[in-house]
C-alpha cells in the first residue's frame, strides 16, 4: 500500500498512533485526509482519545471539527423540519446514510461530514411528499424535462430538492437501487424493520443495522460515484465494526442479503473493506459471500479496478490506471442501473451537455 494511504488508514484504524506522528507525517496526512473528506473524522478521533498533536496541526483539526459539529447540528434541524413537513403523510420516513448515523448516535457519525439529507418513502406517496415539501420550501433543482423524466421513470429517487432559503439538499428515495437495475429489491422489509428513535421527531425512523450495511454497500458498489468512495468505505468499516460486536449480526446480514438478492454488492463491500481496512469479518461470512456473490472469472479484474477506484482522488496515490478504472466503473455502474438501450442515449446526452457547459 502507498505510504501516504497507510498513514491515513493507520490513523483511522489505530487512532492512538496519531500521537506518535511527527510534523512531516502530518504534512502528508492532512492534505490527503482533507481531500478524502476525512480530516474531521481524524479531528474527532484526536478529541475523543485525548491525543496530543503538534501545535501547528491543532488549528487544522479544530477547523475541521467545527465544520463537522455545525453540519451535524444542521442535520438535526433539517430532520425536524422534514418530519414536520411530512407529518400529514402519516407514514414512516426512513432516514438513510449520514442522517441515520447521526440520529441513531452511531460511532460512524463522529466527525462525519455531510453533503445532503437522504430519506426513503413509499413510492406511491412521492407526489404527495413532493407537494408537502415544496410547501415548506424544498424545490427541485432540475427544471430540465429530460432530467425530470429520467429520474421519475428510471431512478430510485426524485431529482434532488434544495431548500429555497437554507440551501440544504434533500434526496428523496423510494428504493435503494434504481427501478431499472436487475438487482432492484422489494424494499418493504427495510421499511417494516426500520426502528423508531426516542429522540427523533414524528414518524422518523432509521434502518435496522443489517439494512444500514446493505444500503451502504449497494450505494458504494452500484452507484458509480467514486468521489467519496474511500470515505464511504470507512463508513462501511465503522458500521461493520460496531454492529459486528453483536453475535447475531453476521448471520442476520447474510439472511437479509439473500432475501434482497444482493449477494454481488455485499461480496464486493465486505471483500474490499476487509482487504483495505482490515475490518474484522468472520472467515465463514467471507466464504459464503465468495461462493454466492463473486463475479465468475472476473475476480482478478474487478479487484484491480476497485482496488484503484476506491482510493481517494489524490495524485500521490493515483496510479496511472486510476482515472481509467473510475471511468470503467462509471460505465459499469450505469449498466447495473439501466439496460444498454437506455444507457447509450443517456451517456451521449451527458457528454453533449458537458460540451455545452464547457463552451
Amino acid at each position, binding site marked *: 500500500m502507498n505510504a501516504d494511504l497507510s498513514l491515513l488508514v493507520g490513523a483511522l484504524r489505530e487512532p492512538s498512533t496519531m500521537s506518535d506522528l511527527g*510534523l512531516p507525517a502530518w*504534512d502528508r496526512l492532512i492534505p490527503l485526509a482533507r*481531500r478524502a473528506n476525512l480530516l474531521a473524522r481524524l479531528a474527532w478521533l484526536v478529541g475523543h482519545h485525548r491525543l496530543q498533536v503538534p501545535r501547528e496541526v491543532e488549528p*487544522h483539526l479544530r477547523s*475541521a471539527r467545527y465544520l463537522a459539529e455545525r453540519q451535524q*447540528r444542521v442535520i438535526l434541524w433539517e430532520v425536524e423540519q422534514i418530519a414536520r413537513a411530512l407529518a400529514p403523510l402519516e407514514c414512516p420516513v426512513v432516514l438513510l446514510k449520514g442522517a441515520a448515523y447521526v440520529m441513531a448516535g452511531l460511532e460512524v457519525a463522529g466527525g462525519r461530514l455531510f453533503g445532503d439529507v437522504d430519506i426513503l418513502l413509499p413510492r406511491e406517496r412521492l407526489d404527495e411528499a413532493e407537494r408537502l415539501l415544496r410547501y415548506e420550501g424544498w424545490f427541485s433543482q432540475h427544471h430540465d424535462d429530460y432530467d425530470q423524466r429520467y429520474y421519475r421513470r428510471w431512478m430510485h429517487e426524485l431529482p434532488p430538492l434544495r431548500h429555497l432559503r437554507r440551501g440544504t439538499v434533500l434526496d428523496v428515495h423510494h428504493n435503494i437501487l434504481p427501478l431499472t437495475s436487475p438487482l432492484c429489491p422489494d424494499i418493504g422489509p427495510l421499511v417494516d424493520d426500520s426502528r423508531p428513535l426516542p429522540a427523533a421527531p414524528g414518524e422518523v425512523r432509521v434502518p435496522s443495522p443489517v439494512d444500514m450495511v446493505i444500503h451502504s454497500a449497494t450505494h458504494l458498489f452500484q452507484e458509480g460515484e467514486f468521489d467519496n468512495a474511500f470515505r464511504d468505505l470507512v463508513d462501511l468499516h465503522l458500521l461493520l465494526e460496531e454492529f459486528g460486536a453483536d453475535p447475531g449480526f453476521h448471520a442476520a446480514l447474510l439472511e437479509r442479503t439473500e432475501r434482497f438478492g444482493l449477494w454481488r454488492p455485499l461480496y464486493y463491500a465486505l471483500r474490499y473493506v476487509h482487504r483495505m481496512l482490515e475490518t474484522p469479518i468472520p472467515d465463514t461470512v467471507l466464504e459464503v459471500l465468495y461462493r454466492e456473490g463473486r463475479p465468475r472469472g472476473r475476480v482478478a479484474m474487478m479487484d484491480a479496478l476497485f482496488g484503484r477506484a476506491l482510493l481517494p*482522488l*489524490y495524485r500521490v496515490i493515483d496510479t496511472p490506471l486510476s482515472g481509467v478504472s473510475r471511468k470503467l466503473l462509471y460505465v459499469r455502474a450505469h449498466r447495473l442501473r439501466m439496460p444498454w438501450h437506455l444507457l447509450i442515449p443517456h451517456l451521449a446526452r451527458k457528454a453533449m451537455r458537458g460540451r455545452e457547459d464547457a463552451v
Partner: protein
Amino acid sequence: MLTSDLSIGQVTALLAEGRLALRTGPFLFRIRSSIPAISRGLTRLYARHTVEVDPPFSDFHVSLERSGGVRYLFRPQVRFLLDEWTPFKPLPLTQAFAMLEWGMNWCIANHAHHYLVLHAALVAKGDRALLLPGAPGSGKSTLCAALVQRGWRLFSDELALFDPATAEVVAVPRAVGLKNRSIEVIRHFAPAARIGPVARDTAKGSVAHMAVPEGQEEGGAPARVRWIVFPAFTEGAEEQIEPVTPARTMLELIEHAFNYSVLGERGFNLLGRVVQEAEGFRCTYGELEQVVERMEALAAK
C-alpha cells in the same frame, strides 16, 4: 529567510520542485509551479516576506499548473490546486499570479474555521483596528491601499481574521489587489507605492497588486477592532458619514462573513463582542483624499 535572500533563479527552481513555502500571518503556503509569472510575482511583491525551503509542515499545499490539452496551444490557461484538487475553473495564463492570490484567499476562507473570516479590508493604528467590509466596487481595497500609504498598518485588503478566543484580529499581510481605475488612483495618490505588473482583461477587469510596505511583512501584533466603516464609493459624491447601530452593523458583518454559518454560536458571540467594542459607520465618498482624512480624524478622537 526572506524571498530576497534567494535569486530569481533559485526561487524559480524551488517553486518548480514544490519546495518553497511563503509565510503570510499565521499561514505557511507551500507552492508548486513552473509558471514564470509566479516566481516573478513572488520576488517582486513578496521580496521581504519570510519563506522556508522544505519546511517540515505547511498549512496549505497549493499548485498552479498550465492546463493541458490542445487548448494550450492557442489559449493557454492556468489551474489552481489545493491538495491536488482544483476548486475553481481555469483562468487565462496571463492571470496566473492573480490566481495564486485568489487561491490563497480561498484556502483561508474555506479551511481556516479556527478563525471567523470576513470579506473586508483591515488596517490599524497600533493595536486599534479599522474594519472596512465592502462588496466589490465599494472601494474598500483602494481605501485600504491609500490608508496603508499614509502609515496605517496593513492587516489585509480582503480577509479579516478574528480569533474566537480573544475577539482580536490577526494580520495576513499580502499584496493589495487594485482594479481598473484604482491602479491609477493609487499611483497618483502615493507615487512611492510599489505596484506590480498589470494583468488586463481578467474577469475583474485590469488587476495589479501593490506590495506590502516594508517592515509590515511579518504582520505584527494582533489588534482590536475599534471602527467598522462600510465604504460606498460614488463618483463625484460629497463625503458623508453616518452611524450604524450595533445590531445592524452585526447583521451586515454576517453578510460579509465567509464562515459565520460554520462557526454558529461561536460566531454569534464573537461578532456580538466585536460590535459592542467598536463604532459602526456608513461612509459615502467620491474623493479618496477626503475619506482618508475622515478616517484619520476618527482615529484621532
